[in-house]
């Protein structure tokens, strides 16, 4: 369905787009180099054959142990042409800075803040680089694989419950 879009993208950016493939269920995916992402996105939005006008769903995945560690995923949709495409950008742990696509789509704003908050990927040129979900005193990036699931950082002193099965109460601990 969006094979033509992938083709056109690869022709226009032969060195930035390292690989294109069709994955499970017919999803068309292109692997893009980190340095070229802003240009590629602007091309995808403005080219008259592609017209990916809707703000993409940007998320990241942490493949700890392989290089590059993070994989930024941009899931795009075009309302005019009704096709979808997915971009995957490899972001190494040593240099987790990517150009922001907020100038291209205003709706990319919070998605990039989420990637910073949860994974620690910084976006250059983002108008509001703060954490989205976690509070400012939080240290670390929770969705990274080396952050423990139960690593709570309480904001205020909490009462400990010694007997989790009996629970607190007049006689329980």
């Amino acid at each position: 369905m969006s094979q033509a879009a992938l083709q056109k993208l690869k022709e226009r950016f032969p060195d930035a787009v390292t690989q294109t493939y069709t994955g499970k269920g017919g999803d068309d995916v292109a692997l893009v180099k980190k340095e070229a992402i802003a240009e590629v996105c602007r091309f995808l939005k403005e080219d008259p054959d592609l017209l990916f006008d809707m703000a993409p769903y940007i998320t990241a995945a942490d493949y700890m142990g392989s290089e590059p560690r993070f994989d930024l995923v941009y899931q795009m949709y075009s309302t005019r042409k009704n096709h979808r495409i997915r971009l995957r950008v490899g972001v190494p742990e040593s240099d987790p800075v990517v150009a922001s696509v907020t100038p291209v789509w205003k709706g990319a704003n919070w998605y990039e803040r989420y990637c910073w908050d949860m994974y620690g990927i910084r976006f250059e040129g983002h108008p509001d680089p703060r954490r989205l979900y976690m509070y400012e005193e939080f240290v670390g990036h929770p969705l990274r694989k080396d952050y423990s699931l139960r690593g709570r950082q309480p904001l205020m002193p909490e009462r400990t419950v010694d007997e989790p099965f009996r629970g607190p109460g007049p006689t329980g601990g």
Partner: protein
Amino acid sequence: MAKDSDNLLPVHAAPAESPLDAPFPSKRMLVNLGPSHPAMHGTVRAVVELDGETIHGMKLDIGFLHRGFEKTCENVTWTQVFPYTDRLNYVSSIMNNVGYAMAVEKLCDLEIPERARYLRVITSELHRICDHLTLVSAMGLELGAMTVLIYGMEARDLIWDRLTELCGARLTSNYARVGGVSRDMPDGWAEKVLRTLDRSAEMADEIDRLLTRNRIVIDRTRGTGVISRADAIDYGFTGPCLRASGEPYDVRKASPYLVYDRLDFEIPVGTNGDNFDRYLMRMEEMKQSDRIVRQCFEQMQPGAIASDDARFVLPPKPEVYGTIEGAMAHFKIIMEGIQVPPGEAYACVEAANGELGFYAVSDGGGRPYKLGVRAPGWNMLMALPQIMEGHMLADLIPTFDTVNMIGGEVEQ
């Protein structure tokens, strides 16, 4: 925020004829609509900079309901994720289940039987009606029409009763499974649902008569919270909010999934992109959902409710207790989780709020490697500061209502 403390002239300064006629100086005021606020639908903190009643800037602070959905899902099996997805958009939870199941089925390359598709569509549309009823009732309540809340809750309770008979729970249904659905309709359920739909259509009609031509509602919602079509697309709006701005994008029509290509229904599209249009979208969509459910009951045939692939679906109980293969398959699925082949997939459904997408990455094991949610309410909330620029504070309330930010999905 702007520091106007040394600016003595008010912001709408006109040159004064004499010092006695000069208007009083005013400063901008910061008001905190805090995280625990009745009109903030749970847990959004809005810091609003006001000049009199006009909003000149708004900053949203979210994260007060962040429950660590994604990280938790990386630590449970694929089937155990279903209850967590329920609690994303908790007013219409079956749609979340269906979306997630579709993403996993895409990864597993699994086809689901006809009857399972029809059941998924029926329950999704029933929950869509519940979601829209909740929104309209909450909007009525916050605009002062408390009767609407009572009628809406009654209609919603009736539909929930039917869903309790089917799924076991009113709200968080946990109904879909990878490969189909978890249980079949009880006897006589179809007739009961049709009667319930008649009754809830009556109540929706009453709500319509109370609100749609009501002078107060029209004054407060028409022309407020306007967003243009281009802006809405740029922000990534989907669902009724996008359609209210004039863009006819509906996942059910654009890329039909399950059995939506065999059903005959229309998508309402608005013109102005204001609160009133968003409200009208939902009233009309309830009627269309009603139509869809009735057609599904007519078209549905008896059959299996889940795929028979023993790698992903629990075998039926007689086989589990009767044959060795059944017992082993059951054991492996329960203890290790279904082993989803490695890969990544994105599947989206048309939830009540917009395009709800699930991005699932599997490393071949029994637990998701990553599960991302594209929450439809997020984009609308992102655009809220721009929508509210220059409007009055009282317009924030209907806008917040019609945008239908559900805390669970926005904050995952």
